[in-house]
């Protein structure tokens, strides 16, 4: 799997231990249901230029979960169970997206923990995504919700807490091994969070993706999908803890630059449950 349509959707911070050096204590877990919306009237071309285009809309409902198998092993799943998207020049498509499942292994304990994450992209989304084009007789277009390939990403993250853990900073990078002729990718992220009060936290993220080699133009599975995608994005989120177990959040993420990618921002609403 990997990034599918135009998406900084994958930037969605789990506010768990995703993309950090920590692992979840044994027997504890965290789940989050989120709803995101994305709209854009421009996109980044394969050359990286931002050009005006037909307006695109995406609505996604996702489930994220992590669970501490042991103190050192954490299982992770991320599943966009509903995608609805369209261009204003096409009909809309509703389908599930590609899912990710994986695990994280803590390598280093202490103040600066380091963890190795391995996750697998499961191609369960609609990799064809055929929609009809208005005003073009017999015209069809592809708005897939998956790239149709199985991939494996290996990432390494490190974190550090400050001021008794009120502030945390994490960073890391990974290598995504793709199949079916898609070009492998490098990914990286840096994020920082700060607990303002006992209930309110804020966080910011910087995340990037680059192909390991020049994109293979013959492997394009759709407009802006799957191959030749690159970006650098930034985002922020505010989280409010309702009680010890439940929390809500709202965030906004936007690419600073990109290739073969929609240029619009992504607004995310989340509801988290810790156990």
């Amino acid at each position, binding site marked *: 799997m990997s990034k599918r349509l135009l998406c900084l959707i994958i930037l969605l911070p789990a506010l768990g231990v995703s993309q950090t050096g920590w692992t979840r204590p044994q027997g504890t877990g965290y789940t989050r249901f989120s709803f995101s919306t994305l709209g854009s009237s421009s*996109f980044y*071309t*394969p*050359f*990286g*230029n931002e*050009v*005006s*285009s*037909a307006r695109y809309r995406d609505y996604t409902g996702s489930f994220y979960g992590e669970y501490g198998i042991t103190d050192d092993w954490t299982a992770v799943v991320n599943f966009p169970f509903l995608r609805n998207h369209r*261009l204003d*020049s*096409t009909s809309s498509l509703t389908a599930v997206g590609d899912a990710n499942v994986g695990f994280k292994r803590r390598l280093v304990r202490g103040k600066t923990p380091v963890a190795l994450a391995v996750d697998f992209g499961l191609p369960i989304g609609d990799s064809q995504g*055929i*929609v009809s*084009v208005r*005003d*073009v*007789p*017999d*015209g*069809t*277009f*592809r708005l897939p919700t998956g790239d149709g390939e199985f991939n494996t990403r290996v990432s390494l993250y490190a974190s550090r807490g400050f001021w008794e853990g009120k502030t945390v900073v994490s960073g890391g990078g990974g290598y995504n091994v793709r199949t079916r002729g898609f070009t492998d990718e490098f990914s990286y992220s840096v994020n920082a969070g700060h607990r303002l009060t006992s209930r309110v936290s804020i966080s910011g993220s910087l995340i990037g993706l680059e192909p390991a080699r020049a994109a293979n*133009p013959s492997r*394009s*599975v*759709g*407009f*802006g*999908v799957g191959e030749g995608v690159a970006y650098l994005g930034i985002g922020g989120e505010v989280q409010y803890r309702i009680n010890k177990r439940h929390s809500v959040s709202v965030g906004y993420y936007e690419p600073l630059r990109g*290739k*073969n990618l929609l240029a619009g921002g992504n607004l995310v609403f989340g509801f988290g449950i810790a156990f």
Partner: protein
Amino acid sequence: MSRYTRLPLVLIFAAAHLLSLSSALQAAKPAYRRVLPGVIQGRATEGTRIGTSTWLVNLGASSASFEFGFLSVSKASAPPAQSRVLGPGETLRLNNVLQDLYGLSEGEGALIVSGDQPFELRGVNASTSGPGANWFQSSEPLGPDACGHAIWLANRSEPDPEFRTDITAVLTAPNSAVTVSVYDASGILRGIEVVSSEGPAIWRASASQFLPDPEIAIGRVKFAVTAGEATGFLSVTGGVAGTGLVAQPERIKAATPEEANLLLNGVTASSDLRLFNPNETEQEITLEALGFPGGPATIGRMAVAPNGLLEIRGVLGAAGFVFPEGAVGALRLRAPLPFLAVGRGLPMAVSSEIGFATPNQPVTLVGLNESVNQPGVRSRIALLSGTRGAIGLLRLRDSRGLTIATSPIRLESNEWQGKAISAWFPEMDIPLDARVDIELENGSAHGYAEIVDSLTQSRVVVAAAAVPVEASATPSAKRLVFSALPSSLTAGTPFAATIQALRADNSVDGRFTGSVDLRVASGPGAFQTTVTASQTAVGGNVSFRDLRLTVPGRYTLTALGAGLESAVSEPFEVASVPPPAPTIIRVGTFAGQNGYLAEGTLQIERAANGSETLRLNPNFRVSGGAGAITVWLARASGPLNTGTSVRVGTLTRVFQGEFTFPIPAPGSSAFTHVIVYCDPFRINFGAAQLRNP
């Protein structure tokens, strides 16, 4: 001319005449000669007339002149012989033969027809009063020392029924002599006359006048030729229906093959049968019904005395068998020794030697018509297979001998199959005076035609005649083939076709000089009228030149030749006259935009009618993996303004290679660029600036 009586048993034969024929008949003997007896023209009863129509078919492979001589039974001098030239396979119909050939309004006698090619000659006497037509076929004259028996003599003065028989002898060659002997059913000689002549002549006597005791209900006449060439016939009139019958002499066959024996076709419940046993011992003749529901059935075994003649009325019911009303079939007659059989109103009895179609011996039915009008005639064709069944085809020919259609036949053992000629050849218009050949690959079959008068429903039956197989050591052409024909043409452009006449071994028959017709077998048009549709072969080859087809489409041609299997060409295309090549008015080269691939060249062409076409050349390619790409004529290379641009086409699944799009009026002159555009995302993928070539 001379006449004498060898045995003066006959007291009165005042009606006998020997008349000279024109010198034409005394000329050198032609290759083929046939006699058609019973030809008549005149008044039948008060207010009605009777006349003879004839059909002559040239069965040879080349044209021939046929000479018609007429021997009249009256004292009138013979009219001069007349000639008619017929092409190979051609049929000549003469509606009133004596009137048409000689201008005679009254006359009766025999036609003697000769020619250098084999032929078939048939006749029908029909009265304007309606029912009563009878068919008869010509026969070859009997040669020296040959004899034939006409076994249907009926002369009875008692009413109910009353029959009268006239006996006619025809001497067809100079210095001929024939002995005419009359026997009754018991084989007792009742009268005899020896007739001779220095030239062709005809002799005729009424049985009532000729015989001392003319009361012979069942009798026969033996015609024995002692010199030259002669034949004869009996004209029987009277009976319940008042119909006529012409009985012709048949030779006694030395032996009858066990499988075939004798066959009488076209038998119905009302058919009468006569059997003659020419042997010195009694023999039993077995009658077997074929072609009737329920399969073959033995209907009787008839014992016939030595030299005896037996008549069986209503032969199908003779042994108590009940056949459905209207059923038609055949009789097979078996006997250990030779015999003769004749049915009233039926074709002559046939054996495997005569009239049977086999793989080596095709037969033909001639003079067939199918008319829905009244008056008119309808023709039915019936086949009866031998014990091994029959597989082959019927070939329908027109009066010129050209094949019009074929119809496959497949009969089981002893199967009878009969239906209207139009049913054998569905969807075909049956031509006038058609001919149907029976050609077999396996087995054997006898065929006959039943001809029914639409107005009176009177029915006559005609047997198939053998088509002569050339005796030449070198086989003749069997079929035509196209040896040269263009595979594609342009409408209106002259072209040539060459046809060859091939033997069975596919070698060209260099001796073939027949006429070949060339026609359009299928296609939307026809040859231009200036083309001669018929050509004569030279050395087995026929060339048609300056052929023109002006209507574009897919065509096949057919070549037709009398007596030959026709040829049908391979299909070929006649293309429209190509329009003038379009003019290239503008060209361009694509360049990608917005990071997408677009490459290759284009041209805008203007046709002679002013219409324009945008052609993306084979080297064209554009990014298109996500779907619909549209092609626009635009006024700038920048982001497409769909309000001022014109969409000329769409690429939906294939995004490289050659494409053509018509440009709507008024054309491309107002535009400066061609843009390939991603409609869903509304961005340009590439553009080409238009320039002059």
